Protein backbone atom coordinates (compact mmCIF):
# COMPACT_ATOMS: atom_id res chain seq x y z
CA UNK A 1 0.00 0.00 0.00
CA UNK A 2 1.28 3.48 -0.78
CA UNK A 3 1.84 5.36 2.45
CA UNK A 4 0.37 8.85 2.77
CA UNK A 5 3.91 10.11 3.48
CA UNK A 6 7.37 9.55 2.06
CA UNK A 7 9.56 7.26 4.16
CA UNK A 8 12.42 9.69 4.44
CA UNK A 9 13.02 13.48 4.41
CA UNK A 10 16.06 15.67 4.96
CA UNK A 11 14.13 17.66 7.58
CA UNK A 12 10.96 17.12 9.59
CA UNK A 13 9.43 20.17 11.27
CA UNK A 14 6.96 19.47 14.10
CA UNK A 15 4.31 22.19 14.49
CA UNK A 16 3.16 24.80 11.97
CA UNK A 17 2.97 27.91 14.15
CA UNK A 18 5.09 30.94 13.18
CA UNK A 19 8.28 29.07 14.15
CA UNK A 20 7.53 25.86 12.24
CA UNK A 21 6.30 27.74 9.17
CA UNK A 22 9.55 29.73 8.93
CA UNK A 23 11.70 26.63 9.53
CA UNK A 24 9.90 24.65 6.79
CA UNK A 25 10.19 27.57 4.37
CA UNK A 26 13.93 27.88 5.05
CA UNK A 27 14.62 24.17 4.46
CA UNK A 28 12.46 23.96 1.33
CA UNK A 29 13.94 27.13 -0.21
CA UNK A 30 17.39 25.69 0.24
CA UNK A 31 16.43 22.57 -1.68
CA UNK A 32 16.07 20.11 1.20
CA UNK A 33 13.18 17.65 1.21
CA UNK A 34 10.93 18.78 4.05
CA UNK A 35 7.92 17.50 5.95
CA UNK A 36 5.85 19.93 8.05
CA UNK A 37 3.49 18.31 10.58
CA UNK A 38 0.56 20.13 12.21
CA UNK A 39 -1.66 18.54 14.83
CA UNK A 40 -4.54 20.96 14.33
CA UNK A 41 -6.76 20.56 11.29
CA UNK A 42 -6.20 24.07 10.00
CA UNK A 43 -2.98 26.05 9.96
CA UNK A 44 -3.23 29.27 11.99
CA UNK A 45 -6.34 28.27 13.95
CA UNK A 46 -7.37 28.62 16.70
CA UNK A 47 -5.78 32.04 17.34
CA UNK A 48 -4.36 31.68 20.85
CA UNK A 49 -2.69 35.07 20.56
CA UNK A 50 -3.18 38.84 20.95
CA UNK A 51 -1.50 39.27 17.52
CA UNK A 52 0.58 42.33 18.46
CA UNK A 53 4.13 42.22 17.17
CA UNK A 54 7.10 44.62 16.93
CA UNK A 55 7.86 45.67 13.35
CA UNK A 56 11.62 45.34 13.77
CA UNK A 57 11.50 41.79 15.12
CA UNK A 58 9.05 40.66 12.46
CA UNK A 59 10.94 42.17 9.51
CA UNK A 60 14.16 40.66 10.81
CA UNK A 61 12.60 37.23 10.34
CA UNK A 62 10.69 37.81 7.10
CA UNK A 63 9.53 40.56 4.77
CA UNK A 64 5.85 40.75 5.78
CA UNK A 65 3.14 40.80 3.14
CA UNK A 66 0.66 43.69 3.67
CA UNK A 67 -2.18 41.14 3.88
CA UNK A 68 -0.75 39.84 7.18
CA UNK A 69 -1.07 43.23 8.88
CA UNK A 70 -4.39 44.71 9.92
CA UNK A 71 -2.82 48.03 10.94
CA UNK A 72 0.27 49.78 12.26
CA UNK A 73 0.38 50.72 15.93
CA UNK A 74 2.21 53.84 17.10
CA UNK A 75 1.23 54.06 20.74
CA UNK A 76 0.12 52.08 23.76
CA UNK A 77 -2.43 53.08 26.41
CA UNK A 78 -1.62 52.03 29.95
CA UNK A 79 -4.66 51.93 32.22
CA UNK A 80 -4.06 52.16 35.97
CA UNK A 81 -6.06 50.24 38.60
CA UNK A 82 -8.37 53.25 39.03
CA UNK A 83 -8.78 53.71 35.29
CA UNK A 84 -6.31 56.57 34.67
CA UNK A 85 -5.24 56.36 31.02
CA UNK A 86 -1.65 57.15 30.04
CA UNK A 87 -0.80 57.18 26.33
CA UNK A 88 2.78 56.37 25.48
CA UNK A 89 4.26 56.37 21.97
CA UNK A 90 5.67 52.95 21.07
CA UNK A 91 9.47 52.73 21.34
CA UNK A 92 9.24 51.34 17.79
CA UNK A 93 6.29 50.84 15.44
CA UNK A 94 4.30 47.67 15.95
CA UNK A 95 1.80 45.74 13.85
CA UNK A 96 -1.49 44.07 14.56
CA UNK A 97 -1.34 40.81 12.65
CA UNK A 98 -3.84 38.49 11.12
CA UNK A 99 -2.02 35.36 12.26
CA UNK A 100 -4.01 32.75 10.34
CA UNK A 101 -3.33 34.67 7.10
CA UNK A 102 0.36 35.08 7.94
CA UNK A 103 0.94 31.46 8.90
CA UNK A 104 -0.89 30.04 5.89
CA UNK A 105 1.02 32.41 3.64
CA UNK A 106 4.45 31.33 4.98
CA UNK A 107 3.46 27.67 4.74
CA UNK A 108 2.42 28.31 1.13
CA UNK A 109 5.92 29.62 0.44
CA UNK A 110 7.32 26.34 1.79
CA UNK A 111 4.85 24.40 -0.36
CA UNK A 112 5.95 26.33 -3.46
CA UNK A 113 9.40 24.81 -2.93
CA UNK A 114 7.82 21.36 -2.59
CA UNK A 115 7.69 20.93 1.17
CA UNK A 116 5.22 18.21 2.16
CA UNK A 117 2.56 19.41 4.58
CA UNK A 118 0.20 17.33 6.70
CA UNK A 119 -2.51 18.77 8.93
CA UNK A 120 -4.46 16.82 11.55
CA UNK A 121 -1.24 14.84 11.91
CA UNK A 122 0.56 14.46 15.24
CA UNK A 123 4.18 13.66 16.04
CA UNK A 124 3.89 11.17 18.91
CA UNK A 125 7.48 9.97 19.28
CA UNK A 126 11.07 10.25 18.09
CA UNK A 127 13.16 7.59 16.37
CA UNK A 128 16.72 7.17 17.59
CA UNK A 129 19.90 5.70 16.21
CA UNK A 130 22.72 5.50 18.76
CA UNK A 131 22.90 9.00 20.27
CA UNK A 132 21.08 10.85 17.51
CA UNK A 133 17.46 11.46 16.56
CA UNK A 134 16.74 10.00 13.13
CA UNK A 135 13.00 10.32 12.59
CA UNK A 136 9.53 10.86 13.96
CA UNK A 137 6.67 8.56 14.89
CA UNK A 138 3.65 10.10 13.23
CA UNK A 139 -0.05 9.56 13.83
CA UNK A 140 -1.75 10.44 10.55
CA UNK A 141 -5.44 10.16 11.35
CA UNK A 142 -5.64 6.55 12.57
CA UNK A 143 -2.44 5.41 10.91
CA UNK A 144 0.84 5.16 12.87
CA UNK A 145 3.85 5.68 10.59
CA UNK A 146 7.60 5.89 11.24
CA UNK A 147 9.20 8.55 9.06
CA UNK A 148 12.98 8.83 8.89
CA UNK A 149 14.95 12.07 8.50
CA UNK A 150 18.36 13.67 8.95
CA UNK A 151 17.17 16.42 11.26
CA UNK A 152 14.09 17.21 13.37
CA UNK A 153 13.10 20.79 14.26
CA UNK A 154 10.74 20.85 17.23
CA UNK A 155 8.41 23.87 16.90
CA UNK A 156 5.60 22.26 18.87
CA UNK A 157 4.81 25.30 20.99
CA UNK A 158 3.99 25.36 24.70
CA UNK A 159 3.55 21.57 24.93
CA UNK A 160 7.13 20.90 23.86
CA UNK A 161 6.82 17.13 24.09
CA UNK A 162 9.43 16.60 21.38
CA UNK A 163 12.19 18.26 23.39
CA UNK A 164 11.18 16.19 26.42
CA UNK A 165 11.51 13.03 24.34
CA UNK A 166 14.88 14.20 23.01
CA UNK A 167 16.09 14.51 26.61
CA UNK A 168 16.23 18.33 26.74
CA UNK A 169 13.98 18.63 29.80
CA UNK A 170 11.53 21.23 28.59
CA UNK A 171 8.99 20.74 31.40
CA UNK A 172 8.17 24.08 33.02
CA UNK A 173 8.99 23.09 36.57
CA UNK A 174 8.55 26.42 38.37
CA UNK A 175 4.88 27.32 38.06
CA UNK A 176 5.79 31.02 38.34
CA UNK A 177 7.37 30.62 34.92
CA UNK A 178 4.15 30.06 33.01
CA UNK A 179 1.42 32.61 32.29
CA UNK A 180 -2.06 31.12 31.92
CA UNK A 181 -4.19 33.12 29.50
CA UNK A 182 -7.75 33.44 28.33
CA UNK A 183 -8.84 35.63 25.45
CA UNK A 184 -12.05 36.68 23.73
CA UNK A 185 -12.29 38.04 20.22
CA UNK A 186 -14.91 40.72 20.81
CA UNK A 187 -16.89 43.32 18.96
CA UNK A 188 -18.47 46.55 20.31
CA UNK A 189 -15.38 47.80 22.09
CA UNK A 190 -14.59 51.46 22.06
CA UNK A 191 -11.32 53.10 22.88
CA UNK A 192 -10.75 56.84 22.62
CA UNK A 193 -7.22 56.43 21.25
CA UNK A 194 -7.53 53.21 19.24
CA UNK A 195 -4.21 52.05 20.73
CA UNK A 196 -3.57 48.63 22.23
CA UNK A 197 -4.42 48.89 25.92
CA UNK A 198 -2.65 47.29 28.87
CA UNK A 199 -4.66 47.21 32.11
CA UNK A 200 -2.98 46.78 35.47
CA UNK A 201 -4.20 46.34 39.03
CA UNK A 202 -5.19 43.58 41.39
CA UNK A 203 -8.84 44.57 41.07
CA UNK A 204 -8.58 43.78 37.34
CA UNK A 205 -6.27 40.79 37.25
CA UNK A 206 -4.48 39.31 40.31
CA UNK A 207 -1.04 39.41 38.67
CA UNK A 208 0.43 39.97 35.19
CA UNK A 209 -1.95 42.18 33.16
CA UNK A 210 -5.01 42.33 30.92
CA UNK A 211 -5.05 43.59 27.33
CA UNK A 212 -7.38 44.98 24.70
CA UNK A 213 -5.84 45.06 21.23
CA UNK A 214 -8.09 46.64 18.58
CA UNK A 215 -7.86 44.81 15.26
CA UNK A 216 -8.92 47.86 13.24
CA UNK A 217 -11.95 46.06 11.81
CA UNK A 218 -14.42 46.66 14.64
CA UNK A 219 -13.14 43.66 16.59
CA UNK A 220 -10.48 43.35 19.27
CA UNK A 221 -8.51 40.71 21.15
CA UNK A 222 -9.46 41.06 24.81
CA UNK A 223 -7.52 38.85 27.16
CA UNK A 224 -5.43 38.39 30.26
CA UNK A 225 -2.74 36.29 31.81
CA UNK A 226 -2.29 35.11 35.39
CA UNK A 227 0.24 33.04 37.27
CA UNK A 228 -0.41 29.55 38.60
CA UNK A 229 -0.78 30.96 42.10
CA UNK A 230 -3.77 33.02 41.02
CA UNK A 231 -5.13 30.25 38.79
CA UNK A 232 -5.29 27.93 41.79
CA UNK A 233 -7.97 30.24 43.23
CA UNK A 234 -9.97 31.27 40.19
CA UNK A 235 -9.90 30.31 36.52
CA UNK A 236 -8.60 32.89 34.03
CA UNK A 237 -11.92 32.72 32.16
CA UNK A 238 -13.85 33.86 35.26
CA UNK A 239 -11.41 36.73 35.80
CA UNK A 240 -11.66 37.69 32.13
CA UNK A 241 -15.46 37.82 32.35
CA UNK A 242 -15.19 40.20 35.29
CA UNK A 243 -12.64 42.40 33.52
CA UNK A 244 -14.83 42.60 30.42
CA UNK A 245 -17.92 43.58 32.39
CA UNK A 246 -16.01 46.23 34.33
CA UNK A 247 -14.02 47.90 31.57
CA UNK A 248 -15.87 46.99 28.34
CA UNK A 249 -19.52 46.53 29.35
CA UNK A 250 -20.76 46.71 25.73
CA UNK A 251 -18.33 44.10 24.37
CA UNK A 252 -19.82 41.00 22.75
CA UNK A 253 -17.65 37.90 22.41
CA UNK A 254 -17.19 36.23 19.02
CA UNK A 255 -14.68 33.59 20.12
CA UNK A 256 -13.00 32.31 23.29
CA UNK A 257 -9.59 30.65 23.48
CA UNK A 258 -7.18 29.74 26.24
CA UNK A 259 -3.46 29.03 26.23
CA UNK A 260 -0.22 29.60 28.05
CA UNK A 261 2.98 31.53 27.58
CA UNK A 262 6.45 30.66 28.88
CA UNK A 263 7.68 33.34 31.31
CA UNK A 264 10.94 31.77 32.47
CA UNK A 265 14.32 31.39 30.83
CA UNK A 266 14.90 29.56 27.56
CA UNK A 267 16.11 25.94 27.70
CA UNK A 268 19.76 25.44 28.65
CA UNK A 269 20.14 22.90 25.86
CA UNK A 270 18.59 23.73 22.49
CA UNK A 271 20.09 20.89 20.45
CA UNK A 272 20.82 17.16 20.44
CA UNK A 273 22.23 14.99 17.66
CA UNK A 274 19.86 15.49 14.69
CA UNK A 275 17.53 17.68 16.77
CA UNK A 276 16.86 21.37 17.45
CA UNK A 277 14.12 23.12 19.42
CA UNK A 278 12.78 26.63 18.70
CA UNK A 279 10.11 29.16 19.72
CA UNK A 280 7.70 28.54 22.59
CA UNK A 281 8.86 24.91 22.68
CA UNK A 282 12.33 26.21 23.63
CA UNK A 283 10.62 28.56 26.15
CA UNK A 284 11.75 31.62 24.22
CA UNK A 285 9.67 34.74 24.94
CA UNK A 286 9.75 38.20 26.43
CA UNK A 287 9.08 37.37 30.08
CA UNK A 288 7.76 40.86 30.75
CA UNK A 289 4.82 40.76 28.34
CA UNK A 290 4.68 37.12 27.19
CA UNK A 291 5.24 38.14 23.55
CA UNK A 292 6.80 35.28 21.64
CA UNK A 293 6.02 35.65 17.92
CA UNK A 294 9.29 37.33 16.94
CA UNK A 295 11.29 35.04 19.23
CA UNK A 296 9.66 32.05 17.54
CA UNK A 297 10.25 33.28 14.00
CA UNK A 298 13.80 34.48 14.49
CA UNK A 299 14.89 31.41 16.45
CA UNK A 300 13.42 29.17 13.73
CA UNK A 301 15.14 31.13 10.98
CA UNK A 302 18.49 30.95 12.77
CA UNK A 303 18.14 27.26 13.66
CA UNK A 304 17.04 26.22 10.17
CA UNK A 305 19.81 28.24 8.48
CA UNK A 306 22.41 26.53 10.67
CA UNK A 307 20.72 23.17 10.02
CA UNK A 308 20.90 23.77 6.24
CA UNK A 309 24.67 24.33 6.51
CA UNK A 310 25.01 21.25 8.70
CA UNK A 311 22.98 19.14 6.22
CA UNK A 312 25.16 20.34 3.31
CA UNK A 313 28.27 19.41 5.27
CA UNK A 314 26.76 16.03 6.19
CA UNK A 315 27.29 16.68 9.91
CA UNK A 316 24.19 17.05 12.09
CA UNK A 317 25.97 16.07 15.31
CA UNK A 318 25.11 17.82 18.57
CA UNK A 319 28.45 19.61 18.39
CA UNK A 320 27.80 21.01 14.92
CA UNK A 321 24.27 22.12 15.79
CA UNK A 322 25.36 23.74 19.05
CA UNK A 323 26.39 26.80 17.00
CA UNK A 324 22.67 27.66 17.26
CA UNK A 325 22.78 27.49 21.06
CA UNK A 326 25.78 29.80 21.22
CA UNK A 327 24.40 32.34 18.77
CA UNK A 328 21.03 32.47 20.53
CA UNK A 329 22.66 32.86 23.92
CA UNK A 330 24.77 35.78 22.76
CA UNK A 331 21.96 37.44 20.79
CA UNK A 332 18.24 37.50 21.54
CA UNK A 333 18.79 35.22 24.54
CA UNK A 334 20.35 38.14 26.40
CA UNK A 335 17.22 40.21 25.87
CA UNK A 336 15.15 37.41 27.41
CA UNK A 337 17.43 37.18 30.43
CA UNK A 338 16.93 40.90 31.07
CA UNK A 339 13.18 40.65 30.66
CA UNK A 340 13.15 37.78 33.17
CA UNK A 341 14.87 39.91 35.76
CA UNK A 342 12.46 42.77 35.19
CA UNK A 343 9.43 40.50 35.34
CA UNK A 344 10.36 39.36 38.80
CA UNK A 345 10.53 43.00 39.95
CA UNK A 346 7.35 44.09 38.22
CA UNK A 347 5.36 41.26 39.78
CA UNK A 348 6.25 42.74 43.17
CA UNK A 349 4.98 46.22 42.28
CA UNK A 350 1.79 47.06 44.14
CA UNK A 351 -1.28 48.94 42.94
CA UNK A 352 -0.48 52.17 44.82
CA UNK A 353 2.91 52.41 43.08
CA UNK A 354 1.23 52.01 39.68
CA UNK A 355 -1.41 54.58 40.61
CA UNK A 356 1.24 57.08 41.74
CA UNK A 357 3.21 56.55 38.53
CA UNK A 358 0.06 57.10 36.45
CA UNK A 359 -0.68 60.35 38.29
CA UNK A 360 2.80 61.67 37.51
CA UNK A 361 2.76 60.57 33.87
CA UNK A 362 -0.71 61.88 33.08
CA UNK A 363 0.55 65.43 33.66
CA UNK A 364 3.47 65.10 31.27
CA UNK A 365 3.46 66.14 27.61
CA UNK A 366 2.32 62.89 25.92
CA UNK A 367 4.51 63.48 22.86
CA UNK A 368 7.56 63.46 25.13
CA UNK A 369 6.57 60.42 27.13
CA UNK A 370 8.60 57.32 26.71
CA UNK A 371 7.88 53.69 27.53
CA UNK A 372 10.90 53.78 29.78
CA UNK A 373 9.44 56.59 31.97
CA UNK A 374 6.68 54.29 33.02
CA UNK A 375 9.05 51.50 33.86
CA UNK A 376 11.37 53.86 35.70
CA UNK A 377 8.53 55.01 37.88
CA UNK A 378 7.14 51.58 38.57
CA UNK A 379 10.50 50.12 39.50
CA UNK A 380 11.83 53.27 41.11
CA UNK A 381 12.62 51.68 44.42
CA UNK A 382 14.91 49.23 42.68
CA UNK A 383 17.59 51.30 40.91
CA UNK A 384 19.54 48.32 39.59
CA UNK A 385 16.52 47.29 37.61
CA UNK A 386 16.18 50.68 35.94
CA UNK A 387 19.53 50.05 34.30
CA UNK A 388 18.27 46.73 33.04
CA UNK A 389 15.09 48.36 31.82
CA UNK A 390 17.07 50.91 29.82
CA UNK A 391 19.07 48.17 28.16
CA UNK A 392 15.89 46.33 27.28
CA UNK A 393 14.01 49.20 25.70
CA UNK A 394 16.74 51.37 24.20
Amino acid at each position, binding site marked *: MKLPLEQFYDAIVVGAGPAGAIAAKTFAENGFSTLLLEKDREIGLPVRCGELVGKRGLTLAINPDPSWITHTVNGVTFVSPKGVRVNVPCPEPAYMLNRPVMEKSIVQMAAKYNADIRVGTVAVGLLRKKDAICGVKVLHHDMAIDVGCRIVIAADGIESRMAKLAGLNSTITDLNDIGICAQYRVTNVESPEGFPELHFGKNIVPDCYAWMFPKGDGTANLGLGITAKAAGKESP*VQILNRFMTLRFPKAKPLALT*VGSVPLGLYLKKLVAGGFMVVGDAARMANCLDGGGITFAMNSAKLAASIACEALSEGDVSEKRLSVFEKRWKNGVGKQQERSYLLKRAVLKVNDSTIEAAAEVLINKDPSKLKYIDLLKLTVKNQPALILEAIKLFK
Partner: protein
Amino acid sequence: MKKKKTITFDIQKCDFCGSCVAVCKTDALILLETSMQIEQDQCTACGRCVIICPFRALTLEDA
Protein backbone atom coordinates in the same frame (compact mmCIF):
# COMPACT_ATOMS: atom_id res chain seq x y z
CA MET B 1 -3.45 0.71 51.86
CA LYS B 2 -3.05 4.40 51.01
CA LYS B 3 -5.51 5.52 48.39
CA LYS B 4 -3.83 6.89 45.30
CA LYS B 5 -5.61 9.59 43.42
CA THR B 6 -5.99 9.30 39.67
CA ILE B 7 -6.23 11.97 37.08
CA THR B 8 -9.52 12.24 35.19
CA PHE B 9 -10.12 14.16 32.01
CA ASP B 10 -13.32 15.73 30.69
CA ILE B 11 -12.99 16.08 26.93
CA GLN B 12 -16.11 18.28 26.78
CA LYS B 13 -14.30 20.97 28.75
CA CYS B 14 -10.92 20.72 27.00
CA ASP B 15 -9.76 23.34 24.46
CA PHE B 16 -6.59 21.40 23.46
CA CYS B 17 -4.35 24.31 24.48
CA GLY B 18 -1.46 22.12 25.65
CA SER B 19 -0.80 23.99 28.92
CA CYS B 20 -1.13 20.81 31.00
CA VAL B 21 1.45 18.98 28.86
CA ALA B 22 3.95 21.81 29.45
CA VAL B 23 3.95 21.33 33.22
CA CYS B 24 3.64 17.54 33.57
CA LYS B 25 7.00 16.29 34.85
CA THR B 26 6.41 12.65 33.96
CA ASP B 27 5.13 12.87 30.36
CA ALA B 28 1.84 11.30 31.45
CA LEU B 29 -0.28 13.50 29.17
CA ILE B 30 -0.20 13.14 25.39
CA LEU B 31 -2.38 15.50 23.43
CA LEU B 32 -3.58 14.07 20.12
CA GLU B 33 -5.54 15.71 17.32
CA THR B 34 -8.89 15.69 19.15
CA SER B 35 -8.26 13.56 22.22
CA MET B 36 -5.91 13.12 25.17
CA GLN B 37 -3.98 9.96 25.92
CA ILE B 38 -3.29 9.63 29.65
CA GLU B 39 -0.57 7.28 30.87
CA GLN B 40 -2.00 6.53 34.32
CA ASP B 41 1.08 4.44 35.24
CA GLN B 42 3.29 7.47 34.80
CA CYS B 43 1.02 9.93 36.63
CA THR B 44 2.23 10.74 40.16
CA ALA B 45 -0.99 12.62 41.03
CA CYS B 46 1.03 15.79 41.67
CA GLY B 47 -1.88 18.02 40.61
CA ARG B 48 0.18 20.49 38.60
CA CYS B 49 -1.93 20.05 35.47
CA VAL B 50 -5.10 20.53 37.52
CA ILE B 51 -3.97 23.99 38.67
CA ILE B 52 -2.88 25.02 35.18
CA CYS B 53 -5.93 23.94 33.15
CA PRO B 54 -7.92 27.12 32.32
CA PHE B 55 -11.12 25.16 31.78
CA ARG B 56 -10.75 22.79 34.75
CA ALA B 57 -10.91 19.80 32.38
CA LEU B 58 -8.49 17.80 34.57
CA THR B 59 -9.28 16.71 38.12
CA LEU B 60 -7.74 14.43 40.70
CA GLU B 61 -10.12 11.84 42.05
CA ASP B 62 -9.83 9.05 44.59
CA ALA B 63 -8.84 5.81 42.92
